[in-house]
């Protein structure tokens, strides 16, 4: 799906009248292009004076809306499947769709992404079949997709570890001389607010900074590290930490898909042009539980959840499309129907996933095999054959 290019739009600097707004009231540093009420803001300034704007066609606006709805519906289906005993665990992205779709659509094909275990929306934007992570959480495979093919690394469960992987990867990109032009490569590392307390993330900041790695640190600040609130993670807004490490940071409304897109596109373009790393703090909220094993009602109050409900990323996009007459009821109904069909299809395919043959656990340990492992495989096969009814 082709998308507008905010970089080009910014460069053209059209003389059209615009209302420049640095941020929404009360949150002085939040880059926002679409208010919770669905009002479009022409452009917004970042803390360093960067002007952010997007210039999408109607078709592209509708495409973003479709992404948001599909991603939410597929996520809800996975949650239901876990409750029905079909998945061992699921980390829902509910509430964070805009941050993921916005940043995911801002990636160019050559860009590499390093996700956590919650980046189902980014995965979807990378063109990976949404069934893939479900195999992991059903316990029938280790993930399933080829990171090189889709330029999307495996889900990383260890908190913050992927930022180190991303930093090393990005340093490699720079050393390979793949930065410096519009066709340069950029890398994006996803993590959450809780991960910013990890040594790994801070080490990544240091390395990326001093080696000028073409890396965008994309932090989805969903306000809770499982049950620990943001005020136990930091005394300053997270994006400001970047300054101490020597690279720019910006806070974007993570429930605004347009601003998330614009800010990420800009940061990626800076990286691919050899201007080094930057930190994006996508300010958002996890509407659901940390994972299906968690009960957020034990540590969050209902009024807080309600306040964020009013900032819903999909509702504001729908209000905008409706007001601007970019889409009508038939479009919304069609998207809902597509979401329903795809989620039913996803469910059917999950239920049909075969259990792996136990012996396949030896298959992908080493790329070129190992004699010791071959021996273990042989022993294990023999053991499995000792059971009655064995097909081996």
């Amino acid at each position: 799906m082709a998308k507008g290019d905010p970089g080009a739009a910014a460069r053209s600097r059209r003389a059209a009248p615009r209302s420049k707004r640095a941020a929404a009231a009360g949150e002085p540093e939040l880059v926002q292009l679409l208010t919770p009420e669905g009002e479009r803001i022409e452009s917004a300034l970042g803390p360093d004076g960067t002007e952010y704007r997007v210039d999408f066609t109607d078709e592209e606006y509708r495409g973003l809306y479709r992404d948001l709805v599909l991603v939410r519906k597929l996520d809800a289906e996975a949650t239901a499947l876990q409750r029905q005993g079909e998945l061992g665990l699921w980390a829902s992205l509910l509430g964070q769709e805009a941050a993921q779709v916005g940043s995911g659509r801002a990636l160019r094909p050559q860009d590499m992404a390093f996700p956590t275990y919650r980046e189902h929306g980014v995965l979807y934007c990378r063109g990976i079949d949404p069934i893939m992570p479900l195999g992991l959480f059903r316990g029938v495979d280790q993930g399933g997709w080829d990171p090189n093919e889709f330029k999307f690394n495996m889900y990383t469960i260890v908190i913050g570890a992927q930022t180190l992987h991303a930093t090393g990867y990005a340093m490699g990109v720079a050393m390979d001389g793949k930065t410096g032009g519009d066709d340069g490569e950029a890398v994006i590392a996803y993590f959450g607010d809780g991960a910013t307390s990890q040594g790994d993330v801070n080490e990544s900041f240091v390395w990326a900074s001093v080696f000028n790695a073409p890396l965008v640190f994309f932090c989805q600040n969903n306000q809770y590290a499982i049950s620990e609130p943001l005020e136990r993670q930091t005394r300053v807004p997270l994006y400001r930490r970047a300054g101490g490490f020597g690279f720019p940071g910006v806070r974007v409304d993570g429930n605004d898909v347009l601003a998330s897109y614009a800010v990420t596109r800009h940061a990626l373009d800076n990286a691919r042009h050899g201007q080094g790393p930057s930190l994006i703090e996508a300010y958002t909220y996890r509407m659901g539980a940390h994972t299906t094993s968690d009960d957020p009602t034990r540590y969050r109050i209902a009024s807080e959840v309600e306040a964020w409900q009013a900032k819903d990323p999909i509702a504001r996009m729908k209000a905008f499309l409706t007001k601007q007459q970019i889409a009508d009821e038939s479009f919304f109904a069609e998207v809902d129907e597509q979401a329903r069909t795809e989620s039913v299809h996803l469910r059917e395919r999950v239920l049909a996933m075969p259990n792996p043959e136990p012996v396949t656990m030896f298959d992908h340990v080493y790329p070129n095999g190992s004699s010791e492992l071959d021996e273990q495989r042989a022993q294990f096969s023999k053991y499995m054959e000792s059971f009655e009814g064995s097909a081996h």
Partner: protein
Amino acid sequence: MSRIKTFNLPDLGEGLTEGEILAWLVKVGDVIELNQPIVEVETAKAAVEIPAKWAGQVQSIFQPEGATVEVGAPIIAIDTDPGAGPIEESTTGAPASDLPTPSAASLAAVEIAPEEGMVEPGLIGGAAPGGRTAVLVGYGPRTTAAKRRPRKGSVPAQATAAPAAPAPAPAAPVPAAPAVNGNGRAGGPVLAKPPVRKLAKDLGVDLAVLTGSGPLGSITREDVQRAASGSPAAAEPLTVAAPATVAASFGADREQRIPIKGVRKLTAENMSRSAFTAPHVTEFLTVDVTRAMKALDRLRERREWRDVRVSPLLLVAKAVLLAVKRHPMVNSTWAGDEIVVKEYVNLGIAAATERGLIVPNIKDAGRLSLRELADAMTDLVQTAKAGKTSPADMSGGTLTITNVGVFGVDTGTPILPPGESAILAFGAVREQPWVHKGKVKARLVTTLGLSFDHRIIDGELGSKFLRDIGDFLADPEAALLAWT
């Protein structure tokens, strides 16, 4: 595939074994959609809504609100094609709709049939006192029968247990709680520095049974080394792994590492929790049971008792049940902010099995006649030995007997199963010199050891309870006449 589909409670949060039904959001007869929320379930981790796995019409609901349900047990049946007309008898085995119990078809599709008693709070896998679900970390032991295929050429379990087969060694693991020796600590964690803990682990010394000589009673390196070199029998817990594995697998270093898992792990967790939560008091009473043993012989001679297994343990069980009636407070649970006293006695019998120590209980044993009690005990032992004891059999115990006497020891200081307030150790019955009618005579004598939770039971009550058990065993016929 059947149009009636039964939904079993899934593991809702990585290694849970049960959940409590908080509220049903649908009722029998409701037409529901796919993923429509049908029930709220609370587990140790979270209260969650479960969405319907199939669209259709609710045909039956198997568990009431408030019930604690094992993972894998059926909770609802859904008719996935309600428009297809009434359900034939042959498919369901029962009239359609509004079934109070699972249909035959739905039961056939599931492993575990729900039954009463499954929901009671209790020790293994059951709810903790106060109605909260026991905290579960990691994957609990699967006490249901595993579906693993049999090994080729393997011998059925019964065959190995049969007396004809020469067993490698007598009784495997020992029942009964391992006795904590007098270390002067009533409770609280063991104090020891990490290197000392490491040393103890390497040497196989259980810190919990040592007396610390360091500051604040902490256990020192010397304490551990002394325990390791000194009398191993004292420091060694009563329970060891099955002898078959002990003999075979010492490595070159002449040490064996046994992974802690399954029943061993569960026992360890329960015993540690109980030992350091409930302040235990143990009292002993030595009783001349000569008359009782003679009474048992006379009982065995009766025609209607000819085929019944009559053991001294039966009399002890009867004694406990009658004594509970006189002192109901001993049959209770400390529930944090209240004491729950139970009218029913689910009498636990600690049993040594191939898998380790298990404590199945006889439900509502107080209402059973002696004959029924004897049958129930025989049944319980046979089920345990066959490895077929279900989680329901083990949950909800209220008071326990551990028969350490079968191993030839005099008595012990048993540890309470979590949630129970009294446990009786029944020692060996031996011929010993005893003053009988003013003269020293050879009499059959046994020693009882009663541990109780001092939060609930004071010395007076505990003593009276133990005394009554002793009185019964000294002269059962007279006690029966006097008490009943």
